């Protein structure tokens, strides 16, 4: 299934989200709480705009020299005794991971949270390929999703934002939980359940926040401690990383960690910020076999294009937390494991326009995403760029709305046409207007027929809101202005006349 979480069209997903009042309430609550935490933590740091510029610079540098830094990183992993596999596609990545599973004879796999493993659908593929393999998601949220029959995540930082404590309790009861719905009790149960499993694990799979080119170590930023256990206990570790996760040095990673923690959860640093790699001589835990799988999976489609800046993303989810569209339609509304503004930009690149081409339209272009992005990705502008590809080049849209947009394009390009629109807008819209007794928005709605249904875009507007028909031509602003100027001239002439006398 890749990054898609649904086969339904956008409108159907939006309608489903609208029914899910718990999800909507918890997203709104989360957004509002995160707003305060995030903005406070940034204010406390000070000079936020300059920090963003630095973050942007580091990420742009890493992407501009992506092949060089990946080469340096892989050389260093190799030098430290690890293996690196460059995977063009998700199938290549899964094949390599499968090879390691076979070679090591792994029986119990533990996983920490990683969006890219969700993207390549690693879990289900490995389970299908290896009858004797047990696999456990150990991040609390991912564990809940897994035990809920692999429910799909709705947020890249808070994957279970759509679930309430009663639902979590029900899921855990199937695993033997007998307590109440107190989140702390639920979490303690998960701790105990997963700890037993952890201690027997022989293969760990982690994601990677940043890969440090000049040391060959990876940098992980977490709160629960499961990622560190995943890197400590099993003999073998596989790191799966999107190819753009690279940074030049530890110092660069450290700057980004500071931006990431504040932007994602409003913390100065999360509980655990770890630099880790291949076990060195004398150590008794940590990976003896350290593998890094570097995944392209269509990311390179963005390189050298107007979309290159999307690879700067550090997956903090701040754009999701400020998005007014996400606020209502939630993660499942996007139909992609990458929701929100980042998802609406990334999904068409990774998953194609056929499947995700409508996502860039599911935005009011309010710019909240661009404003909050800690590495200055111009997200709302990239959404417009997608719309351009979608309409101008692919010509996939067509239909009445397309026709109307073409008409608006022509109408706003020629002054005489627009002046006709001012003149004939009233009689034109009058044909779609109806007499109603609604007159509550004063100084806007007049006691005249209202446009409340119509074809195409007019209908889209009128399904939700009333529109007054335009004023009579002689009452338009332009007519008023012409009269006004005329009167000023007359008054001036009179004044001049009287002063002549």
């Amino acid at each position, binding site marked *: 299934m890749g990054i898609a979480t649904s086969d339904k069209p956008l409108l159907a997903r939006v309608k489903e989200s609208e029914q899910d009042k718990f999800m909507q309430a918890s997203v709104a609550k989360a957004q509002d709480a995160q707003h305060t935490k995030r903005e406070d933590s940034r204010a406390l740091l000070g000079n936020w705009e300059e920090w963003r510029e630095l973050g942007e610079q580091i990420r742009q540098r890493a992407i501009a020299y992506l092949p060089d830094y990946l080469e340096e990183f892989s050389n260093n992993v190799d030098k430290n005794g690890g293996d690196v596999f460059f995977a063009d596609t998700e199938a290549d990545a899964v094949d390599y991971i499968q090879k390691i599973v076979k070679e090591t004879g792994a029986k119990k796999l533990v996983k920490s949270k990683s969006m890219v493993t969700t993207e390549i659908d690693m879990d289900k593929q490995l389970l299908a390929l290896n009858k004797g393999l047990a696999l456990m998601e150990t991040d609390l949220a991912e564990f809940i999703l897994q035990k809920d029959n692999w429910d799909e995540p709705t947020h890249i930082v808070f994957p279970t934002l759509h679930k309430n404590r009663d639902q979590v309790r029900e899921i855990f009861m199937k695993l033997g939980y007998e307590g109440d719905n107190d989140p702390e009790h639920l979490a303690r149960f998960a701790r105990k359940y997963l700890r037993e499993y952890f201690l027997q694990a022989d293969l760990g799979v982690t994601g990677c926040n940043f890969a440090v080119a000049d040391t060959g170590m990876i940098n992980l930023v977490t709160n629960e401690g499961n990622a560190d256990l995943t890197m400590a206990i099993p003999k073998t570790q596989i790191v799966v990383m999107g190819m753009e996760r690279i940074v030049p040095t530890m110092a660069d990673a450290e700057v980004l960690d500071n931006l990431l923690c504040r932007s994602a959860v409003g913390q100065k640093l999360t509980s655990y910020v770890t630099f880790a790699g291949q076990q060195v001589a004398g150590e008794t835990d940590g990976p003896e076999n350290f593998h890094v799988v570097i995944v392209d999976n269509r990311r390179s489609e963005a390189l050298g294009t107007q979309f290159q800046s999307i690879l700067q993303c550090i997956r903090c989810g701040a754009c999701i937390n400020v998005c007014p569209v996400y606020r209502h339609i939630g993660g499942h509304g996007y139909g992609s494991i990458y929701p929100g503004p980042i998802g609406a930009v990334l999904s068409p690149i990774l998953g194609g326009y056929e499947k995700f081409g409508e996502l860039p339209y599911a935005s*009011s272009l309010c*710019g909240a995403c661009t404003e909050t992005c800690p590495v200055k990705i111009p997200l709302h502008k990239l959404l417009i760029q997608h719309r351009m590809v979608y309409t101008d080049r692919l010509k996939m849209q067509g239909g009445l709305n397309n026709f109307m947009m073409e008409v*608006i*394009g022509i109408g706003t390009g020629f002054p005489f046409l627009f002046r006709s629109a001012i003149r004939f807008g009233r009689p034109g819209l009058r044909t779609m207007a109806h007499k109603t007794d609604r007159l509550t*928005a004063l100084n806007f709605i007049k006691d005249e027929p209202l446009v409340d249904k119509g074809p195409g875009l007019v209908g889209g507007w009128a*399904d*939700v809101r009333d529109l007054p028909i335009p004023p009579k031509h002689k009452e338009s602003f332009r007519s008023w202005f012409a009269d006004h100027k005329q009167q000023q001239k007359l008054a001036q002439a009179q004044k001049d006349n009287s002063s002549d006398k």
Partner: protein
Amino acid sequence: MKVVIFSTCVVDLEFPNVGKAMVEVLERFGCDCYLPSDQICCGQPTYNSGYEKGTQRTFRNQVDALLSVESDYIVGPAGSCVAMLREYPELLKDDPEYLGKARILAAKTYEFSQFLWRILGVENAGAELNGKATYHRSCHMTRLLGEAESPYALLEHVKGLEMVPLANAHDCCGFGGTFSAKEPEISKQMVDEKVRHIEETGAEILVSCDPGCLMNIGGRFNRLGKPIKIMHLAEVLNSNVDERRITYLKQMPV
């Protein structure tokens, strides 16, 4: 001071009162106003919908029209549309004939409240309006134009007007130009939340500097049969003016 009025298509088509109020306020402060008749629209409806090439003519027409009258400033009653004109140098960067003109245009174009406060230095416009109001800050005016202060500063000095802060003021009202018509199911939920927050303030009057948002929020209020009075800031500042109340800022904003 010669000021060209950038009327915006929304005001031309739906909000004559906003245009009138803006001109009357500007004239009160000594501006000689001009309204070039060839101007149409900033181009957002089509450009933001992905019709890049189809919008080039709109951009060029707008540049020619607004520069057709020699002026000191160009002033418009919509933060979003003004932000778009400010982006013209970027949007016309591949058009050698128009790039220079676009830069001239962008450099002297201001949103109404911004012009009044930052350029003319008006502190108290002399208006009086009795009632309780809340202000809707538009996303484009705040984030793209970067103007988050001037309307609040001017509203503070309107006699008789009680301003109530709006919860979640940073959230979009769901207008988004053609988004409101193309994705009504999403837009409806957004505007409903905005309506709810406005209702919760207990305000009788909703003020904004973007007619597009007012059209969206006002249209939804009316559809729901909920009472509200919709006013553009220019209309507020043009209410019951007593010129003796007019004051200017002692220090210009930076």
